[in-house]
Structures are given as structure tokens and as C-alpha cells.
């Protein structure tokens, strides 16, 4: 009896097919990532103040964070661009692999594969920059990671955030196949603003003029009241509720988006 949900052999064949079909695009993306990373390293080196002898890693990390976030969002939004054309859609759905394998395959490529490649490129870029500044400027690197990732927001938390961002764009990719990145980004903003506006309506109805300002609230977290410095007050959710909200965001929301993405792909038809 054949397993119609998951087979490691079929999964391997699917990944092999995907990589073989798109290897030129992948090679181009890797080259772009590497060129961008090394280019930034060279640009930073060229613009380095000659008196600067201590280079702090915390000054480099924001560039890493921005580009990693960008690449994760970009690649996740392209997860299902094969569905943009009817012929490719047919090819995607008629390939004898299970729906789960197809969705998981896209996930592995756009998150795991992209993350690994990005970090390799980032490492090469960092090593290039470090070699240049140490050799030609006689500078030293200061590894002050904790400035960017303090104990309350660790690198693990940041990766979790990226996982969430990927899940949101992955889910969005099941709706939009062309120009998906700007479309998903726009919808994501609308969704976030929507939550905030609903919260504004509720807080204004409940607190009225007692609010510090009509918009002063953080959905699921706090409401700020009081119009002068003496009487400012923040209603913060109790710790147990805050932790519950955090748990939902960390461990339920992301898998929920994966499951929804899976079912959206499973239910797709070809008109």
C-alpha cells in the first residue's frame, strides 16, 4: 500500500526535480546574494574612517538583519509562483508527488535553503570585510553581539520572528503568484493596521477622552490613558495573558499559517 501523504523517497525526487528545473534561477540568486554581500563589504571598507581602529559587530548586524529579512520575505513570496500560468499549474498539480510533499518542498527551498545560502554569503562577506580592515587598516573587530541581541531578545527570538515572517509571506504566496512580494507586503500592512484600527475603535468606545491620545494603544498588550504628565497611566495586560498571547504568537500562529497554506494549495483547481 502506497503512502499517499509522505514518502521520503518521493520528497527527494521532488526536491531534485525542483532544483533541476530552476537551477539557473537559484544560481543567479546565489550570485546576486554573494555579489551584494561582498559589494557592501567593499563599500563599507572604502568608506571606513582611517582613525577608526575598533570595528563593532553591532554596527554591521543591522545590515545583516535588513537583508536577511528582505530575502526571507522575497523568497517566501515566490514560493508558489509556478501557479501563475495555467500550464505550469497543471504541471505542478499533476506531478505524482503528494500535496504535502509539494508544499513542504517549497518550504524547504524558500526557508531552509535560502537561510543556509544567505548565511554562507553573509559569512563570506563578513570574512572579506574583516580581512580587509585587519590587513589594511590595522583595526580590530569587537564582537558585541549582545548590543543587538540582548538577553531579552536573543538571536533565537530573531530567527523565530523570521520564521513568522516567512510563514506570513508563504501563506500570502498562496493568494498571489505575480508581483507577489509587494502585494503580500501591502496586504500584511493592511492586516496589521486593521487590527490596530479595530483596537482604536474599541479603546475609544471604552475609554473615550480618558485616553492619552485617540490612537495610544498596543493591540493585545497595552492602553495608555491620561492627558497630562501627572496622570499618565498604562493599562498593561496581566502577565499570564501577556504570556498566553506570546505563546500563541510564537507557537500557534506560525503552524496555523503553514496548515492554512497547505489546505489552500490542496484546494486549488485549474479553471
Amino acid at each position, binding site marked *: 500500500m*502506497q503512502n*499517499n501523504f509522505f514518502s521520503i523517497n518521493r520528497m527527494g525526487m521532488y526536491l531534485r526535480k525542483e532544483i533541476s528545473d530552476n537551477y539557473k534561477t537559484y544560481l543567479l540568486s546565489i550570485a546576486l546574494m554573494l555579489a551584494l554581500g561582498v559589494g557592501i563589504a567593499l563599500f563599507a571598507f572604502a568608506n571606513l574612517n582611517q582613525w577608526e581602529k575598533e570595528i563593532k559587530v553591532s554596527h554591521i548586524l543591522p545590515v545583516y538583519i535588513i537583508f536577511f529579512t528582505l530575502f526571507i520575505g522575497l523568497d517566501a513570496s515566490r514560493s508558489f509562483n509556478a501557479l501563475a500560468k495555467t500550464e505550469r499549474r497543471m504541471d505542478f498539480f499533476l506531478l505524482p508527488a503528494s500535496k504535502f510533499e509539494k508544499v513542504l518542498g517549497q518550504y524547504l527551498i524558500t526557508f531552509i535553503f535560502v537561510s543556509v545560502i544567505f548565511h554562507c554569503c553573509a559569512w563570506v562577506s563578513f570574512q572579506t570585510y574583516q580581512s580587509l580592515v585587519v590587513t589594511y587598516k590595522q583595526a580590530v573587530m569587537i564582537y558585541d553581539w549582545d548590543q543587538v541581541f540582548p538577553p531579552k531578545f536573543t538571536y533565537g527570538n530573531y530567527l523565530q520572528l523570521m520564521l513568522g515572517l516567512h510563514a506570513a509571506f508563504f501563506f500570502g504566496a498562496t493568494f498571489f503568484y505575480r508581483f507577489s512580494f509587494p502585494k503580500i507586503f501591502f496586504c500584511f500592512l493592511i492586516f496589521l493596521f486593521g487590527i490596530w484600527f479595530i483596537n482604536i475603535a474599541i479603546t475609544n468606545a471604552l475609554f473615550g477622552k480618558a485616553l492619552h491620545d485617540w490612537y495610544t494603544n498596543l493591540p493585545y498588550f497595552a492602553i495608555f490613558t491620561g492627558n497630562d504628565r501627572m496622570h499618565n497611566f498604562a493599562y498593561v495586560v496581566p502577565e499570564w495573558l501577556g504570556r498566553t498571547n506570546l505563546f500563541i504568537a510564537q507557537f500557534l500562529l506560525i503552524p496555523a499559517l503553514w496548515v492554512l497554506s497547505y489546505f489552500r494549495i490542496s484546494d486549488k483547481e485549474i479553471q
Partner: protein
Amino acid sequence: MINIQSLKFSYKAGRPLFENLHLQLLPGHIYGLLGKNGAGKSTLLKQITGLLFPDAGKVEVFGEVAAQRNPSFLQDIFLVPEELYLPKVKINQYLATRACFYPKFDHQAFESYLREFEIPLNQYLPEMSYGQKKKFVISFALAANTRVVVMDEPTNGLDIPSKSTFRKLIAGSLTEEKCIIISTHQVRDLDNLIDSIVIIDNHRIIFREAVETVTDKLSFKVVPQLNPAETVLYADSNLRGHAIVTPNKHQEHSKIDMELLFNAVLSNRQSIQEIFN
């Protein structure tokens, strides 16, 4: 093998394409699916291959629900669509990554089909013409050895020698356990190939007969002048005279003319039904 029961389907609410459609297709046959533009031929093929889901009723292929698109179902059915997608790779690379999904794939047969169609094995797929792509996909579909092969307008884009090669290959690949469904408007290309005819019109199957039965019950001939005493189900005038379809009362042997039959079924449905019932 293919069992469609009470199929209901519509693209838009209130405008049904299929209403209570029933169809059973058996292995060992080559079915020709005929119908006017917009009758729903491609939609029916998509229902059979699981690309569209029924609004009501069921579509089962070798006992599996087509809409579930399970790997066990997909590895035993192959669709040659009218518009093709092929990745930007060479034939051997395509073969290396796709053939493994079809357990009964016959590499030797694939190579011989390509040779018949005069396509080199190391050809780069995007550099092929539309006709060559079609021949490549047809070769792959037949070599995949799936129990069901579904083809939507397979002869579109094929040159004249390739059409005859196509007929030869299809006829040669048919086995007792294989079912081939060909949807086409180019009926003359497949006159000698199809052994069963399915005509779809007005939301349902209006005609489903074996070619043998059709030639037993109907006579296809060209006459210089129409005889008012003779029952003519359909007549088509051309330079050679009048091509006509008549009831085969005297057990005459004639060669089926699909185009004529199709027009006769659409224009004289009642009489045709009476003859076949």
C-alpha cells in the same frame, strides 16, 4: 476504469456546464471525445485528471477519487494538455528528474518514440518548436505507461508525417489495461484510431458508442444526388457530391466519417437515439 456519476459542475453559479453527467470508460479502448466549442471537453478532461473538483457527484479513476490527486492516482494517469509547460532543461535532464515518478516508465520505448518523431535525445527543450514539444510530451506520456492517458487536442501543431506517426504510436501503445482519451476538433486526423466515440453537448453526454456499432447501424457514403426516398440523417454537400449519413438498413459496410457523424448527432439527435436504442 473511469467512472463518472451524476457529475454537476459550473464555472459560474446558475450557468451549469455539466448536469447529472454519467460516463463509464473501460480499459483497452481509445475514446474520442467530441463536442462543440465550450461544450466542456477540456473541463471533463480536467475533472478526470483531478484538476477540477465536481460541485456534486463523483469522478473516480481506477477506484480513486480524482480530486484528491493522490500520488498513487497521479502516477497512473498522464495528461497531454493543449498548452504545454516544459522547464528550461535538456531532454535527458527532464527524463532524469521526471521519469522516476512513473514506476512503469519505459526508457527504451521513450527513445524509440523520439526516434520515430525525429527528435534528438540531447535537445534543449526551450529551443523546440511547438510541434516538437508536443511530440516530446506525447512520447513521454506513452513511455510513462500509465493506465490512463488523456490528450487534449494532441494533433494541434503536428505536421502531416507526425500525425501518421502519432496514430501509429498510439495504436501500438494500447494494451488491454490501458485507456486513452483524446479530445479533439481535428476528427479527420483520428478517423482510423478511435474505437469509441463520446459526444458531449448541452451539459451531458449525448452519444457514446463503439465505432463498430456506429458502422453497423449507420452508413456513410458520398452520393452524386440526394434521393428523396432515402432517409438521410445528415448531408454535407461538397464538390464530389453529397456526403450523407443514413441508417444502415442493408448491412452495408462503410468507413466512419467522424465529422459527418458528429454533425448528424448534433442536428438529428432524436433519430440517432432511436436508431441506437
